[in-house]
């Protein structure tokens, strides 16, 4: 369906009254695609590089040009990454911790953004300010106080501490992004719903949330990536192996004097697969959701 519309668009663009203009347009488009293509190469290269990297020996990783292909692909790096340490378990932990935190963040952030932008109350500006300032604190300032707090309530070495931390620390960013969007969403539908006697909760869950799916997908992607790659909190608050996550698996290959870079590369490749898939899926939601929203509108 989207293909159709794309084609229609291109024909719309290229059909022009003036032939000279059309030739110019073609050159312009060629140039545009050249730049876009170049940018695409730059953006996809890191992924390819990472795959090469994961197949190299330590000796090759350094010294050789980053362009170079692995001379003798070290598939053993993957075996090593998969067998030393509990990577399967880390994988599972990463997934459920990430998903749970993303869902919590998005729901809570939507609640707040809705209340701040749609409801009338005096302190809304102040509350928003509190979230804004919360975005500014450097992570490392919070480590020791947080450790003490979790420790005093026995949440150290408990995955709840990780979920709570991820949820909380992503709230300010998520709210700020949502805010930019909520301000531009049409209010008419919501107003009409209220006129019809719809309750606030119904309005929020039935109308506002579905309408904001594109931006929710956007924030979900961002949150997911942050949580997935986070390691400072896990490292600090978790001590037993059975609650650790994938990023800690990378640490498994950092030694006192020797670091096994190939295996780190392999772990990185393994760990990027699930978010790559989820990302591709969610990324389509940004567009699809839009269409659904406009149909309703």
């Amino acid at each position, binding site marked *: 369906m989207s293909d159709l519309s794309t084609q229609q668009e291109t024909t719309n663009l290229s059909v022009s009254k003036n032939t000279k203009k059309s030739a110019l347009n073609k050159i312009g488009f060629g140039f545009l695609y050249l730049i876009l293509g170049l940018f695409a190469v730059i953006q996809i290269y890191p992924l390819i590089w990472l795959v090469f990297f994961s197949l190299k020996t330590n000796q090759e990783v350094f010294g050789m040009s980053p362009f170079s292909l692995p001379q003798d692909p070290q598939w053993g790096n993957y075996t090593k990454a998969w067998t030393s340490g509990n990577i399967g378990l880390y994988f599972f932990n990463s997934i459920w911790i990430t998903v749970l935190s993303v869902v919590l963040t998005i729901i809570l952030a939507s609640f707040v953004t809705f209340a701040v932008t749609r409801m009338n109350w005096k302190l809304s500006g102040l509350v928003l300010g509190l979230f804004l300032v919360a975005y500014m604190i450097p992570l490392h300032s919070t480590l020791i106080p947080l450790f003490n707090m979790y420790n005093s309530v026995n949440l150290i070495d408990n995955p709840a501490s990780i979920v709570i931390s991820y949820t909380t620390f992503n709230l300010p960013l998520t709210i700020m992004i949502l805010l930019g969007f909520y301000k531009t969403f049409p209010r008419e539908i919501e107003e009409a719903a209220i006129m019809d006697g719809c309750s606030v909760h119904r309005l929020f869950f039935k109308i506002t949330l579905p309408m904001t799916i594109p931006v929710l997908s956007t924030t979900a992607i961002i949150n997911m990536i942050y949580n997935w790659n986070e390691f400072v909190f896990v490292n600090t608050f978790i001590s037993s192996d059975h609650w650790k996550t994938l990023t800690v698996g990378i640490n498994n290959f950092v030694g006192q*004097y020797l670091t*096994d870079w190939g295996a780190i590369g392999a772990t990185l490749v393994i760990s990027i697969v699930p978010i790559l898939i989820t990302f591709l899926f969610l990324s389509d939601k940004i567009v699809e959701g839009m269409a659904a929203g406009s149909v309703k509108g």
Partner: protein
Amino acid sequence: MKKKAFSALLSLALMGGIVLGGCSSSSSSSDDSGKSSGGKTVVKMMHLWPEGSSKAQFTIVDDIIKDYEKANPDVDIQTEILGNEQYKEKIKVLSASNELPDVGITWAAGYMQPFVEGNMFAPLDDIVQKDQFVAGTLDAFSVDGKPYALPLELNITPVYYNKEIFKKYNLEVPKTYDEFLKVVKTLADNGVTPITLGNKDRWTGSMWFMYLADRIGGPEALNNAINRTGSFEDPALVKAAEEITKLVDMGAFVKGFNGLSNDEAKGYFMNEQAAMYLMATWELPNYTTSPDVSQEFKDKIGYFKFPTYEGGKGNIDSYVGGPGVGLFVSEQSKVKEEAKKFVAYLVEEWGKRSVVDAGVIPATVVDTSSGDLDQMYIDILNDLGNATNLTLYADVQMSASVADVHLNQIQALFGGQTTPKEFAKTQEEALAAEE
């Protein structure tokens, strides 16, 4: 309406969690360490040898723990393993919260000092057998004559070189510094990087300075400057700094050394793009036993002692080096006695196995007759036996903030952003300020 109930529930649950959390304070957290199910004594240990990168060390520790638990069925040793950087960061958080593990890894001297002063480490004089350790290693882990950790490793720093590159340019192993300079010059003139150096890490450059200081002024010059019986503006130290500047100007070091990490710099040596590499003996497995490195490369690598300086006071059997890490027992530990017993056992067993199994030279006296060791190990162990002096890495001797000044000055000296005189002066001031 279901949704409403759900949202209310969710908010309540979260709030409840927080409120509960905030109020229950410290009532329950105090008695979790010590006993586990089945009445076993739990000893918590943290170390930095993950299975992935340090399989040999990991396995040794793991075996030792199993043996110990078998011999002491009422003890349960629980380990937490972190990578090097993460380990250091976590120890900081844990010590600030007074939650150190019962047993853990520490570095010597300057790193350990604040922990001892803060009453975090238990004195281990009651379990130590002094003759068990190589002379001097225990001192690096002692404060006011009492040991607060037991050393596990001992490293010296030879200069590794690529025999093939040397042969190609008809170079001999240098015995004196003049000969060394000739080697450097020949290589540089032929477009070969003479020395690789990852001076982003800074302690790497510090070792070059330390050796020159030792060869020119003898071990006392630097040691006295640091222990404040002397001065950092000692002519020998300034002279050593001048020699560094000369080396840099000759193009002795790899291009962009101040931006390379040790790992990256090592890559140049491992890929035969640089002829020499000054590094501690923890690198030995790469040239002997490591299965990841080709035998062809290993055969090309030899080592020599840092050459002597004409008219200098230092001799060739004096080394820069020192014990790497040691084991501490937390002063706050509820199972201190059990932890001490375990540490004593671990150090002893570690000494028996570490060279042969992991290529780690232990701080305990090694019996070279047993086990089949690679020739390079036997040579190094012999050198160690004949050593006249071992100067502990300068940045380890110093307190964290003075060490930072020293290391920054090293980087500036190598990078040409300071003069040898200023280099000495800045460090003298930093050292004096802390007296």
